[in-house]
């Protein structure tokens, strides 16, 4: 075998190794993707006037449930982003709701101060139980759950939402 042929074989082998590495990488990442979307459980909160608000009543809309509290700095930091998202995508089917682990008077005052343009609730026990049902066992905040128009949970996020990620998620799941 002359040197030129040998080098050609080496190149082909390298390319094959690269191809196999590519296939393996994509396979591993696919396999490690967590569970598929699941149906949102039946959850009801009480609004600031004590009236029940259920997740089911928003069926047909893209629902973002954002758990927050007045004592949670990262929650307050992300709220302008949510206010903007409600303003921008509300007419296209987005509905944000904000159950707070807090006292009603504190929630009312802060929501007014921040100009919150979506329904907020103050119901510590219900919010805590709902978060646990939705997989947030520590009860840490902020915690957001995106439920599509068919009532399927498509994303849960523990921690503050980032503008780019939120926009991409909303645009990907807005009702058709």
């Amino acid at each position: 075998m002359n040197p030129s042929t040998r080098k050609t074989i080496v190149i082909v082998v390298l390319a094959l190794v690269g191809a196999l590495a590519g296939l393996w990488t994509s396979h591993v990442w696919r396999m490690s993707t967590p569970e598929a979307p699941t149906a949102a459980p039946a959850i009801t909160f009480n609004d600031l006037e004590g009236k029940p608000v259920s997740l089911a009543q928003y069926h047909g809309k893209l629902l973002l449930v954002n758990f927050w509290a007045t004592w949670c700095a990262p929650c307050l930091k992300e709220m302008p982003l949510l206010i903007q998202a409600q303003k921008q995508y509300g007419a296209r089917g987005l509905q944000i709701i904000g159950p707070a682990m807090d006292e009603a008077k504190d929630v009312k005052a802060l929501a007014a101060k921040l100009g919150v343009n979506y329904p907020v609730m103050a119901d510590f026990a219900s919010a805590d139980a709902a978060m646990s049902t939705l997989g947030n066992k520590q009860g840490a905040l902020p915690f957001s759950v995106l439920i599509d128009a068919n009532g399927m949970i498509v994303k849960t996020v523990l921690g503050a939402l980032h503008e780019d990620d939120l926009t991409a998620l909303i645009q990907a799941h807005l009702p058709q």
Partner: protein
Amino acid sequence: MKMSKRNLLNHLTLALLLAAACILPGFAIAGGLWHSSNVNSAPDILPVDQAFQLQPVERTERGLKLGWIVSTGYYLYRERIKVEVVEPAATKISAPKLPAGEKHHDEHFGDVHIYRGGSIDAEIPGGKSLGQVRKLKISYQGCSESGVCYPPQTRIVDVLAYSAAHP
């Protein structure tokens, strides 16, 4: 036929490009999957009692000693630490003497003080006048540096007898 150095370099470059062309789609697929299909996105955080380890309350000659061990990557708010007496009911005590903590300005909370990972020792002064205090209610609240906060915590704890605290 002997291959020139230039040809060898060209072949190697071609091989690297082919390998990259094969590997990169894998990462692209992986990235796309993360953004579109991962249902759960969450930082790993400790259970609250590991993040903020409340230490036993000890009776000392000067009063009562309490404290926390805050895990690295977590912080407690100084202004959210409160201590009340549960037994005997309606017993008044002084506010705990706490370390100064680290100054922190928050756009919503204003100027506050936080305790980052490490040991916090506090003292409730009162000497022998606290001899009857048997149970305390201790409240505190803190967060993870990863950007999530735990709900306010309240613990009812026994005050260790002087002999138990200082065998």
